[in-house]
């Protein structure tokens, strides 16, 4: 699928690049469409290129031998999916990724991206900024998973995804919430019921409605 300059401009990392730099990258790039749930990348496989979400979203996750999933990050349009790969000692993917909703991704060959980053200082700085943000994300995730209670994680999840400026209105199953929070569906179900009993939330058919934001914020610190 042909990649246009407009496609490249959708990638946050490329937002500040000069038209000449974008024009040099465009012929090297390719794009591919995925249906909801399609596999984008498999843990343990070599990534052929560095990938960017143009449309839709991608969920990056790891699976335990028992089949339990832990979502590591949800990426939206403009985000890089495997930015460390072109700079890593091995191109083997440390995690898997699937499309969330119908999605379109852009790919650049690893060597071409590495060369571009070494030749364009603005791109190199943008890469470092993105990697720093990712490091911050995983520091927070490690804290959440190891030191925060499931009640706290669920409260935080509800507050984060209820905000009006959430990137896209997503409908979540309890299984998906569990994969985000590092627990199992039964625990999510039990904790939601406890929040209902305590008057923090209300289940209104297909909606989880937050009734007591302050109490939920206090809970999210637990």
């Amino acid at each position, binding site marked *: 699928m042909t990649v246009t300059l407009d496609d490249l401009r959708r990638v946050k990392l490329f937002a500040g690049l000069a038209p000449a730099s974008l024009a040099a990258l465009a012929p090297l790039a390719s794009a591919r469409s995925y249906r909801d749930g399609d596999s984008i990348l498999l843990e343990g496989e070599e990534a052929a290129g560095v990938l960017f979400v143009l449309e839709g979203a991608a969920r990056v996750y790891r699976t335990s031998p028992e089949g339990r999933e832990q979502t590591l990050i949800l990426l939206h349009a403009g985000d890089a999916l495997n930015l460390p790969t072109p700079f890593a000692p091995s191109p083997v993917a440390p995690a898997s990724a699937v499309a969330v909703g119908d999605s379109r991704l852009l790919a650049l060959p690893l060597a071409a991206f590495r060369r571009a980053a070494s030749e364009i200082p603005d791109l190199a700085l943008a890469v470092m900024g993105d990697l720093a943000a990712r490091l911050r994300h995983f520091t927070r995730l490690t804290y959440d998973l190891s030191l925060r209670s499931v009640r706290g994680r669920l409260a935080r999840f*509800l507050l984060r*995804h*209820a905000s009006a400026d959430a990137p896209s*209105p*997503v*409908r*979540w*199953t*309890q*299984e998906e919430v569990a994969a985000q929070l590092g627990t199992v*569906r039964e625990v999510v*179900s039990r904790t939601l019921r406890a929040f209902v009993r305590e*008057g923090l939330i*209300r*289940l*209104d*058919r*297909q*909606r*989880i*409605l*937050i*009734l*007591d*934001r302050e109490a939920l914020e206090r809970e999210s610190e637990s």
Partner: protein
Amino acid sequence: MQDWALPTIHPQECTGCGLCVQYCPTAAVELVDGKPVIVRPADCAYCGLCEENCPTGAIELAYEIGFGAA
């Protein structure tokens, strides 16, 4: 927002055990050719008992998250 959202059934994960039919308090779901179908969608209360009791995770209820009045 669609007010008529219904549970999603994944037939390939369903063993046809019928527990969802047994637990549904409004008899909205029935086995048709051995697989569950929400035959009376208007009766589905979206209570989640089918999801909770499904041994293979073949029925899922999805939720949007928002703010509401008590």
